[in-house]
């Protein structure tokens, strides 16, 4: 997987709560067996207006846009967010289905970072989505609600504003300030920084796994 350390990019705002993975990448695209190529279908139902024709091309064996009509009301279609690679959104992003196609689609569309707020003691991102994102080097930053609101205000006033996410220092900095600190679990941080093959790491512990397996009770064996 790709590693993540310090990254600067343009910001896009998606002012919605509880964005589910069905919205991030609708079901029909889950029939694909590839790991890549989901970017064009990110937020498909929100992004595209009636008149859009996206269908399976028998020769290509894949979905192709015959015609694409962008929905002018969808935030991410606005010119000010063109080329954005950091998505700032609201709480409980990535809830619902376990589909890893969600981070694949976000990364495929160029996003490297998603920033969202905690709400009281409730984490900003859904559990499975968070795990899937780490597996793919998509950086998720959880901030306090007031901090995310401050980012919304700044970006609204300065469209295209750049943000720098510094994982080693655990900071998010807006051009011209302010800088916010964020928390991240140390295991997740190490994995993102090194981008190493997690399966390889586990395989190194094969002996420990074998020892564990030797003690599995008969009723649990298969």
């Amino acid at each position: 997987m790709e590693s993540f350390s310090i990254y600067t990019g343009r910001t896009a705002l998606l002012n919605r709560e509880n964005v589910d993975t069905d919205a991030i990448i609708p079901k029909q695209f889950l029939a694909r067996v590839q790991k890549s190529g989901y970017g064009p279908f990110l937020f498909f139902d929100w992004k595209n207006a009636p008149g859009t024709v996206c269908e399976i091309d028998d020769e290509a064996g894949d979905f192709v846009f015959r015609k694409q009509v962008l929905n002018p009301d969808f935030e991410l279609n606005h010119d000010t967010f063109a080329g954005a690679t950091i998505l700032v959104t609201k709480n409980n992003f990535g809830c619902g289905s376990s589909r890893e196609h969600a981070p694949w689609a976000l990364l495929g569309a160029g996003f490297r970072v998603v920033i969202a707020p905690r709400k009281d003691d409730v984490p900003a991102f859904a559990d499975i989505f968070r795990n899937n994102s780490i597996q793919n080097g998509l950086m998720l930053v959880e901030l306090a609600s007031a901090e995310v609101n401050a980012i919304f205000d700044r970006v609204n006033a300065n469209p295209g504003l750049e943000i720098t996410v510094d994982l080693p220092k655990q900071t998010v900095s807006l051009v011209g300030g302010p800088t916010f600190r964020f928390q991240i679990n140390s295991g997740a941080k190490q994995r993102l920084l090194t981008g190493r093959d997690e399966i390889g790491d586990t395989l190194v512990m094969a002996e420990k796994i074998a020892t564990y397996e030797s003690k599995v009770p008969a009723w649990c064996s298969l």
Partner: protein
Amino acid sequence: MPKTLFDKVWEAHVVEAMPDGSYLLYIDRHLVHEVTSPQAFEGLRRSGRKLRAPKRTLAVLDHNIPTVDRRNITNPIAKKQVTELESNVREFGIEFYGLDSDRQGIVHIIGPELGFTLPGVTLVCGDSHTSTHGAFGALAFGIGTSEVEHVLATQCLMQSSKPLNFRVELQGRLPRGVTSKDVILRIIREIGTAGGTGSVFEFCGEAIAAMSMEERMSLCNMSIEAGARAGMIAPDPTTFDYIQAQNRPFAPKGKVLTEALNYWKTLQTDAGAHFDKELVLNVSALAPQVTWGTNPAMGTDVSGSIPALDGYKHSSAANVERALQYMGLKAGQKMTEIPIDLVFIGSCTNGRIEDLRAAAAFLQGKKVKVQTLVVPGSMQVKAQAEREGLDHVFKQAGAKWREPGCSMCLGMNPDIAAPGQHVASTSNRNFEGRQGKGARTHLMSPIMAAAAGVAGHVVDVREKLY
């Protein structure tokens, strides 16, 4: 130190506590379906890795399978996904329940039926509703495709932290016409779709003790809709009876079963164990629940009304307005005024035999006004229902009796609702587009869905029972 049920199962599976605070967890059971596995098998092929313990994995076709002419998959991409699983299970030597198998069905329905799901095991699947299996006192949770590959290669998962303990006590007994589906919808409505994030629920209390395994599975199934990592119920005689029933090939038997039972009986939360969060709900006056919005927390009593824009506690008025616009509904509208164009009875939430019995009992001698799809959750459920003559009841009521699969729970197969249609659905997600682009899903119990089909709008089934 006193421990919770979750603590006990978790601790019994830690292979190694890592210096960075992560845990390497052993995975006893792994379920695989066609949608979230092809990239994992491809990853294994590319890295030249093998399965560590192929016997611990079962694979099944469910999501893409048409419920009418099941072999005739016309979507070439879906068809490729199906054939890919068929060849992957051959290549990697995995037990497989394909279209020819009389044990085929939705992954979360067949695991328990086969006796594969047991108390005290860790069970994962590349599917969020894996929480279903927690009904047996298993620690069961959904994972992504990279993690599917990890489990296939190592039979372990790296967990960056241990989830919190969240106790949900259900006091009282459920009234007539009210089901465990209503209970879980009520819980989600209370704490929101993120209320359980980072936690594992333990459901307990009088109402749980009285529930069948089917009811418990429907409840645990939707733990994920409250954001929880998993939902668990301590095993009891109801659990043990289910496991010892006929026709569960993977369940332990004889002496091994005795050993297992001795251990399973210890899987209870100790007195005084610590819970990080708690919710107590008395269900004795609970009303049937119906959703009006675009996530499972956007619901209310069937006897109630859609809240005012600023009357919904889990998101802003702007989000409620967007949801109502999508749903074609208005704030303040009575729930029973919601028209229904289509009924779907099925899914891993409510596609089990008891669900079909409840719906059939209601439909006996009545006619549905709108198109109604009844989709058994598995071949075993279908066979049982047909032995009991439920298929005739459904057909006489004007409903369609279909072949097992995920069907209209998510439109990855031909069962799709049309834009703007209101669907009374026994599934688990009312997200935008889930049942078809523009489709408007109202989550409810099987008996409520059946009643809505007869009336052509949302109705309070309690008024129709005598």
